[in-house]
Each structure stands twice: as structure tokens, then as C-alpha cells.
């Protein structure tokens, strides 16, 4: 007589769901999905002695924020809302732009130097010598400082977007432009923001 094969009793697995749920809830609680975001900057190297760089006055746009969070752009007291537009006009360095808005608008107007930029040709006139000098005071609030920084970055981003639309017909965005195109635009409008030490 053929013996019937005896089945091993199956383990009751109904509680494994509960087990998995507890683990799941633990990881849910412990997870932080937030990714860190911020304005990235590259600080200059530390040198023991103060290096004095000779920069022509016309190449510098002074942005000062004092302890009362008041803003001065160039030579005049100004408002954060105007900073982006003024910085754009300064970086663009097109004579007629400075002229349009009156002589007091931005007296300094950085010189353009011929530069080899990929896609743009060998002697593309880029405002690579310009410097935006951002000076803050010991008592300036960080919130104001970031607002100013943000406006300056916005100015660069908008200019880069304009040139990208002109040249490539695409927005200035990592996802649509190739790496070389991104670099070319960065070479065209290099970000030169100098963060001077707070004044005492």
C-alpha cells in the first residue's frame, strides 16, 4: 500500500504582516525626506596677508548693507527690489543701458574683453572682469544678507537664461542644455561676487 506523503504543517504567517508593519512605521518615522537646498558659493582661498587686487573702478559694483539693513548700490541708497535689475544692467555692460537710465543710474560700466567662448566664437566680448563687491556690516541681519545674495544670483540666472534663449533657444537649465553649453554660458557670464568681510 502506497504511503500517503504527510504534509509538513504550514507555519502560520498571518503575523508577519504585523511584523513588517512595525518595521515600516519605524522607518517612516525615522526618514527625513527633505533634501538640503541653498545658495552655493565658492569661498576664496585663505591667505595670511591681505591681497590687494587692482581692479579698475569701472569694473566694480559696490553693494553695501549696513547694520540697519539699509542697502546702497553704487553710490545711492536703494531698495532690494531694484537690486536685481541694477545688477543685470551692470553685468550686461552695454553702454546704452547705463545711458538709458540716466547717468546716475550706474556710472560704472565694466569693460568687456574678447574671450574665447565655446559656441560663441573666438573674440566674444564678455564682461568677465566685472566684480560685484558685496559688503556687509557686523550688525547686518542674515535674512537681509540672503535677500541681497538671492537678488544677485537671480540677476545672473536671468541674464544666463536670456543668452541661452538667444543662442540655443532653450532655457538655462541643466536638464535641457548639454554640459558644454552650460559651461559656455557660465563663461559668458561668470559669477564674480566678492563677499568682503564685515566691517567693524
Amino acid at each position, binding site marked *: 500500500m502506497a504511503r500517503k506523503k504527510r504534509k509538513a504543517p504550514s507555519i502560520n*504567517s498571518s503575523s508577519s504582516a504585523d511584523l513588517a508593519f512595525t518595521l515600516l512605521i519605524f522607518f517612516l518615522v525615522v526618514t527625513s*525626506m527633505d533634501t538640503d537646498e541653498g545658495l552655493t558659493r565658492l569661498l576664496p582661498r585663505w591667505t595670511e596677508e591681505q591681497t590687494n587686487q587692482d581692479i579698475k573702478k569701472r569694473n566694480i559694483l559696490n553693494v553695501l548693507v549696513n547694520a540697519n539693513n539699509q542697502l546702497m548700490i553704487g553710490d545711492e541708497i536703494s531698495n532690494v527690489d531694484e537690486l536685481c535689475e541694477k545688477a543685470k544692467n551692470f553685468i550686461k555692460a552695454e553702454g546704452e543701458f547705463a545711458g538709458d537710465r540716466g547717468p546716475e543710474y550706474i556710472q560704472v560700466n565694466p569693460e568687456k574683453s574678447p574671450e574665447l567662448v565655446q559656441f560663441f566664437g573666438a573674440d566674444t566680448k564678455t564682461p568677465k572682469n566685472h566684480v560685484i563687491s558685496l559688503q556687509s556690516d557686523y550688525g547686518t541681519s542674515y535674512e537681509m544678507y540672503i535677500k541681497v545674495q538671492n537678488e544677485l544670483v537671480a540677476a545672473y540666472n536671468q541674464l544666463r537664461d536670456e543668452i541661452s534663449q538667444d543662442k540655443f533657444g532653450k532655457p538655462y537649465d541643466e536638464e535641457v542644455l548639454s554640459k558644454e553649453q552650460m559651461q559656455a554660458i557660465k563663461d559668458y557670464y561668470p559669477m564674480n561676487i566678492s563677499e568682503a568681510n564685515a566691517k567693524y
Partner: protein
Amino acid sequence: MSKFNKGEKRGMPELNTSSLPDLVFSILFFFMTITHMREETAIVSVNTPQASEIVKLENKSCVTTILVGKPKDRKYGVESLIQFNDDFLDLENVVPKMTQQRQSMKEVDQPKMQISMKIDRDTKMGVVTELKTQLRKAQCLKISYSAKKQIRRNK
């Protein structure tokens, strides 16, 4: 006896839950892979400012976070202090701590080291500037001013 009442009660057929654990496990694995353990608890209160032009910090393994803000515990005073890894950090100790932190990173990541500064919006720039000077001395040149996303109004 009524025609429709069959005497014995018909129960609902039981739902087969044998695949439920698999389902839950798959969600579990998703969260396990995505998780990195929550960082240190903040001992300073930080409310980062808002900005519209922010970018995401790419690889997290290269990012070191420094917090600056008023201490939550009033016994440490009301002046803004720097926090790093669960403890207050004096300005003089920034350079050794950062060097130590850099050494603890993988060799390939060391040149990519990035400092994310989470600074409270009411902090005075004096502390921030001094911290930046110390970071420059420590050769930590890639920094990020941590901020919250804000939609730009006038574009």
C-alpha cells in the same frame, strides 16, 4: 418554513490576506533604502531664510552641516552660537573639527566636501563672517547658505 431562509447563516467569504506581508515588505524596503538616519538634534533654534534661486545639494555624503542660531536652552545665553555634531563649536575649534571631519570622509569625497550652513534668519552677520573666515582657513571653500524655497514674485 420560509422558502428563502435556509436556516444556516451564510458568512462573508474571507479575504485572502496571504499577499499582504509581501506588499508591506516592499514598502518597507523602499523606505529602508531611502532612509538616512535623522541627523543630530538641534540645540540651537534655526529658522532658515527664504530664497528663490536655491539649488539642491547633490551628493549627501559630501555635505557637512553646521548650524548657527540662538541656543534653545536659555542658560547658554541669547547670543548666536555655532552647533556642529550635537555640540557647540567655538570659533577657534572650527579648523581642527573641519579637518577631522574631512579626514573621516572617503578619500574620493574629500575634495568635494561641502559645508551647508543652516543659519537662523535673525543672526547677525558678524558671527557668519567669522565662521566663513574660519572655514576658509580650514580649506572648506565650498559652502552653501541653506534656505527655504520661495517662489519669485516679479520675474
